[in-house]
């Protein structure tokens, strides 16, 4: 996946046919991060800590519903226009942020499913071969994140 053209309000990315399939696989995996994952505070010194934590969970749940709907619409096959090299897809500036958040949900969620490893991923794969899917999904999500962010790099 690479930047094909930068426009004022959007980016056009070019994907190989396999990349399109993999991007759709990543988006269809959403959501993966449990809603209870985030904590508002570590110190526990906040006023109304419990109520505020609930508000955070509600806000994240609401966002998740919106993003699930967004994914559903975004995966419409007509969004990907066939070209000689594969496909072109237009990502508006607004969609850009949503797409990044969704892809990172899949990345972080896969990492959590792996047990939040800090160690070498190759080592993990050797010790837990059943983790292949999560590991590849996590790495793929990272690949698409970086490819998306290239859109912001004017020098690229």
């Amino acid at each position, binding site marked *: 996946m690479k930047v094909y053209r930068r426009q004022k309000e959007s980016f056009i990315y070019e994907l190989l046919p396999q990349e399109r399939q993999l991007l759709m696989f990543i988006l269809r995996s959403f959501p993966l*991060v449990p809603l209870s994952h*985030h*904590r*508002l*505070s*570590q*110190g526990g*010194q*906040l*006023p109304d800590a419990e109520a*505020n934590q609930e*508000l*955070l969970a509600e*806000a*994240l749940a609401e*966002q998740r519903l919106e993003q699930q709907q967004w994914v559903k619409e975004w995966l419409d096959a007509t969004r990907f226009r066939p070209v000689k090299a594969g496909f072109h897809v237009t990502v508006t500036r607004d969609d850009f*942020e949503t797409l*990044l*958040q969704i892809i*990172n*949900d899949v*990345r*972080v969620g896969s*990492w959590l499913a792996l047990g*939040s*490893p*800090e160690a070498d991923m190759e080592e993990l794969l050797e010790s837990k071969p059943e983790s292949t899917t999560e590991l590849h999904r*996590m790495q793929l999500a*990272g690949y698409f*994140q*970086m490819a998306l*962010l290239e859109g*912001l790099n004017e020098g690229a």
Partner: protein
Amino acid sequence: MVICTDLGLDSEGAGNYCFGMAGTASPEVEQAQQTGSKDSVDHGYVVICWNDPINLMDYVTHVFQAVFGWPRPRAQKHMLQVHQEGKSVLVREGLEKAEFYVHQLQKYHLHATLERAE
């Protein structure tokens, strides 16, 4: 003397709330805390981003830019602080606004929390 005030969510970034620190690119909360007496100043809440081994460095930099409206060098400085020191204090605000920022950062799945400023 440093005077802190609430300027709202302007595009210049939430860190620009401390007068008397002209020319600095960062809120440098610690500096602000050293001025004023504990009894007379409401220290508010700090938004902290913690290091984790999963969020990519370029991604974290982008999120700081998107959430706070910071220029890239400032966002990179905080990202590197997170990476190298384990955490970075991003802004100090009142409770409501600090919660808002934490919500925004968590939307991107950064490991962010708010803590009472001391």
